[in-house]
């Protein structure tokens, strides 16, 4: 009498299970690695964009202030030599047919030299200060305190914020810097040349 074929047993053998688990672990491990790397990259990118955004916004504010300023009011006279602060006046419009100029304002590094500070009526009793951005690098990107023009921009040992008067224009440079948790430095430098309109 012919016996009916024995049905195949369900489930995996131990070897199959081991292989499956190993493959699964490899896949998950790889996926986790990729995800972590991607998140880290995204984090870096986000931080970089954030700093760039912050630097650009600050630069736009500085640039507009310099554009609207009376060139003759720029103090100190920053001809040829770079400086990290300017004092200026700008037009407020017309009153009784005459151009009205603002109270003096200043853009400079703060005492700690790590933030860009805007100041109204500098040195006066009614002085008012606003921090436009922090995280300013002590030196411009690529520069070292060694008396040499390390970053080949024509300036020696310039600060993280620098102004250079070029004729009727002012060249502005700004570097923001922030150390990350892994010890890396994220730096963002922006540069702009604007013409004094007044």
């Amino acid at each position, binding site marked *: 009498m012919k016996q009916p074929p024995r049905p195949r047993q*369900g489930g995996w053998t131990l070897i199959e299970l081991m292989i499956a688990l190993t493959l699964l672990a490899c896949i998950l491990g790889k996926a986790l690695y990729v995800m972590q790397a991607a998140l880290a990259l*995204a984090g870096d990118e986000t931080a970089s*964009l954030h700093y760039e955004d912050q630097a650009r916004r600050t630069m736009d504010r500085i640039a507009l202030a310099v554009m609207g300023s009376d060139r003759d009011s720029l103090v100190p006279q920053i001809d040829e030599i770079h400086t990290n602060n300017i004092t200026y006046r700008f*037009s407020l*419009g*017309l009153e009784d047919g005459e151009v009205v100029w603002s109270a003096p304002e200043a853009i400079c590094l703060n005492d700690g030299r790590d933030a860009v500070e805007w100041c109204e009526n500098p040195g006066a009793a009614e002085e008012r200060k606003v921090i436009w951005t922090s995280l300013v690098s002590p030196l411009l990107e690529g520069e070292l305190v060694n008396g040499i023009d390390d970053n080949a921009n024509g300036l020696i040992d310039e600060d993280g914020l620098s102004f250079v008067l070029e004729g009727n224009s002012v060249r502005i440079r700004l570097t923001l810097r922030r150390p990350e948790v892994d010890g890396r430095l994220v730096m963002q430098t922006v540069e702009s040349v604007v013409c004094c309109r007044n």
Partner: protein
Amino acid sequence: MRTRQHAAPGRAGAALILSVMAVMVVSILAAGFLQLSLSVTRRLSSSADAAQALNLAEAGLAEAYTGLGMAKSGNVGTPEQPAFFGGGLFWVEATTHASGVVELECTAMYGTGRATLGMVCEPVAIGVASLGFFTLEDLRLNPDVRLDSYDSAQGSYADQINTPLNNQGVIGSNGDVSIGSNNKIFGDAIFGPTGKVDVGSGAVVTGGTSARPELEELPPVEVPDVAMKSVAVKYTGGSPMIVAPGEAGYSSLSIGKNSKLVLKGPLTFVVGTFLLGTGAELTFDTSDGPVQMYVTDSLDLSTSSIVSTSTQVTSDSIIMVSAPAGKTVSFGAKSQFYGFIYAPEAEIHMSAQYELYGGLVCKELQLAAQGKLHYDLSLGATLKSAMPRMLAWRVVELPQAVAARRTDPFQVMGLDPKALPSPSAAHEDQVLEVRYVADDGTTDTYFGHESDFDWNQVQELLYGVRDGLAFYLPDDYASSGDIGVDPLTSLVASSLSSKQLRDALLAASPGVSAEALVAACERNPPMSKSDLGAVLIANHPLDLDTLLAAIVSTALDSSTLKGVLVANSPLDPAALAAVLARSPPLSLSDLTSVLATQ
């Protein structure tokens, strides 16, 4: 028999779970990157839009600034109908202040970007002097007034009579302009926006007549703060009273009979009540500098007094009258006054013997019959100084309505970009006067609103004025015969009667141009034979063209033509041949007389 085998229950769905997990991980990553990417894109787009809006605002200011240099108003577009440019839109609002400076404010929108920039300009020489002879109230000219023009920068008035420069006068008001009978207006008459112009019988306006686009506002006189002598001074000395350069002030000053007052420039002279008595004399000595005379109460230059200027520089002798309406401001003196009179609140009475070279702007004007006004073009803008001077530039806080919705500006404002004008076409409409060479080579002129003028037909611009202010004059316009029409030629072409035309041409003889004489010979309706003959004889010797025109003219009969020909004999052979070929021929006796003089 085939049997279907089913999977073991313990394996069912395991692959699906793994697959779903994997898909979820990938989806989360993808969503994260997408979010990051969108955030970056939004930020970059917003930043780019803001920069572009700023650039558009700069472009708008530049358009308005350049427009000011071309005698435009500075208004470009409106919030309701802005100019389309570079994928965005902008409009510029110009505000002219009493001091003459113009404040431009340009608002630009691009994508989500918004910017408003302001600029303060001082249009050079765009002042009240460019209005020519102007009154705030209706202007009514008595009969036989002559208004014409010259350019003191190009020479004396006498040298420019019957030249194109003599034909660019400007007379106008904020209301009606009534041009009395037999007035000769060599130039334009511009009346108020809701006014009209009436031209009396025999009167001629060689230029255009048109409404000004908007009412002119005259800034008040700002009297300088000068120490005043409080006691009334009456000078009756035999030697001249000389007011030294610097500043001087009198609350009341009277120059008695046959006395003389000399105002020595550079001088700022303020006087409350000023009287120039019978036979008295007032001299503006501007040899060393300008004299500015401010009258705060009343001015009376009696009819037998004399006023003179030591130079013919019209911008050096200025009379500013801040006296209110109702006070006497009378220029009755005998004078050839080279200067500018400004009295925005006063009614001025001017006698016919006060011949004014320069300009006059006042509230009301009573000009005696036969008065003579000669507008000095150099008081208006010239191309050399037409570009405005920038005084200040600034970033203006965005208006609330503009800052509110940061989306596509065309959607926000409900505008179709295709229906918006370009920046050059968005300038405020003005009264335009141009002389140009058209595409077909003919020289043509236009006077009217600029919106009605097709610039495409202009091949070459010869002369251009907006709202009475020149914006284009060629370097050699003073000597070029192409850029202007001889005023006498315009006179010939006018509707003057033969007698009136004869009188006008005889008054200008013997300097009537050949062009005007030829036009007189060819006039239709023709001048009477005696009138034309008198004019031709008064201007002999005639050139060949004029002689030929006279010979073929139907206006001259045989006898009158004989007189002209004899007066110009011996004749050129070409003229003689024309005489012999004339139809109808000269009478035998007249022909004999002419031939006898050859």
